[in-house]
């Protein structure tokens, strides 16, 4: 595998990331941009912040560097890497979903969706009042409504 060619990615903040081509083509969206010839100098990724982009590059690197074999150890290593990767706060996971969806990286999306689902499912509330609070909290996660009353209560 040759690592000679590099690609420059420019993100939302105007920051640039120099990445090996083999790593950069992991996301299908970038691969298609390169194939279509619209990425001679640098690829603009205006929807992605530098924090998220460096996380995405970290993920792509790990997946390119891990030998594509059926070896149990390599598979387990990648699995534990992915598992640690999604150990993030909800805001970061939301940002990752948007970035991964935009860049079309499918394999990790599944795990992120499941992680967010596990976060919001919580426990089954027995009381109606408790249920309303959980519902309002979930609502505020996805709609962006600040609800001070619910924020002040620990769920």
């Amino acid at each position, binding site marked *: 595998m040759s690592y000679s060619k590099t690609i420059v990615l420019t993100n939302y903040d105007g920051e640039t990331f120099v990445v090996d081509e083999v790593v950069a083509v992991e996301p299908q969206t970038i691969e298609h941009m390169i194939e279509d010839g619209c990425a001679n100098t640098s690829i603009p990724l205006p929807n992605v912040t530098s924090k998220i982009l460096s996380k995405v590059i970290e993920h792509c690197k790990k997946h390119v560097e891990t030998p594509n074999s059926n070896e149990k150890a390599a598979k387990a290593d990648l699995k534990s890497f992915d598992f640690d990767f999604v150990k993030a706060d909800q*805001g970061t996971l939301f940002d990752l979903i948007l970035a991964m969806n935009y860049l079309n990286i499918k394999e990790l999306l599944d795990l992120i969706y499941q992680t967010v689902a596990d976060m*919001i499912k919580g426990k089954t509330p027995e009381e109606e009042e408790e249920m309303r609070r959980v*519902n309002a909290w979930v609502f505020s996660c*996805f709609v962006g409504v600040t609800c001070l009353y619910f924020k002040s209560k620990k769920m």
Partner: protein
Amino acid sequence: MEDSDHQPTHSGSLIGSNDDLLTEILLRLPVTSILQFKSVSKHWRLLLRHRHFTQRYDTLSKSPGFFTTDNIYVPYDVANPTTPLFRSLDFYPDPHGIRIVQSCNGLLLCRTYRGSIDARKYYVFNPTTKQFAIVPRLPGGYEVRKTIRFMGLAFHRTDCVHYKLVCICSLESDDDVELFQIQIYSSDTGEWKICPAPSYRNHLYFKIDAEQLQTLPLPVEMTVFQTVTMYFGESRGHLHLTVLVDSDETGLHLNVYEMLGDHSGCMLRWFVKYQLQLHEICGAFPEMTCSSYDFDVVDVVRGVKEEDTFIVLRISCKLIRYNVHDKSFRQMSDVINYAFRKDPFAHHRYIETLAYF
């Protein structure tokens, strides 16, 4: 749930307003959360009730256990038992009590338990969503209703939101041949309809969409060897027939057949999907001596993956789960009541489904 430092985020509202992304997250929630989150907002209620969502959700749905006729719940997985979303059939105040007749893809056909034929009602109930419907009475009054021999529910969640009931009544006839009449109820039209009356023959099946009786093929072993039919049922779209075969060559064994159908759903032939030698069971459970085979095949449950497929057996007083992949036995329950032993077919699978009818 860690919430104290939660800040509503811009990305959260972007995902919240993108139905595709939101759906992907919601699909991965347990069914209790889905039911609860219907009251999060009007938007979520519409999304979670929409057929696009419920159908995708139901393809991943689980069958965690079954009910016996006296409404006792038996989980399939003893190590991780689940409690069903409903505990009793109190969805309708029937003074004579309600019992399950049949389970079909998550919907239960129920019937008034005791009481006269005139007081008897049939219900269709979704135990997951708690939705139920009272089936209109079969027309023709008492004279027709007393001849009901069979009532069955047909529901295929991916095909249609409606269900059908098939009722077989016996007709009076002059000679010895017993004649039957088939009536079909559709929740789409809300009416009963009579099908052309066929005369009685063995090995028939009723094709619901064509509303016709057709001949059911039989496995070749059933015409050659001595056989006993042990089980007939469906799982994950596969139709299974389990037969005890006594052949000189291979000894006494269980054949689990699967039906091979064509594209139109016509049944072509059976093929042997799994085979279980009886001496394997005798080896694992000495109480089942080879002189008296005190056992039943209760259920054949296919997993999403082949290694999750198992057969539920009743061996003397125990319920046993036999994994077809690694050929292992695991005990599910050691207390089986008399009614269940007498009628092992009277078990009704519990399947979570969000289907609305």
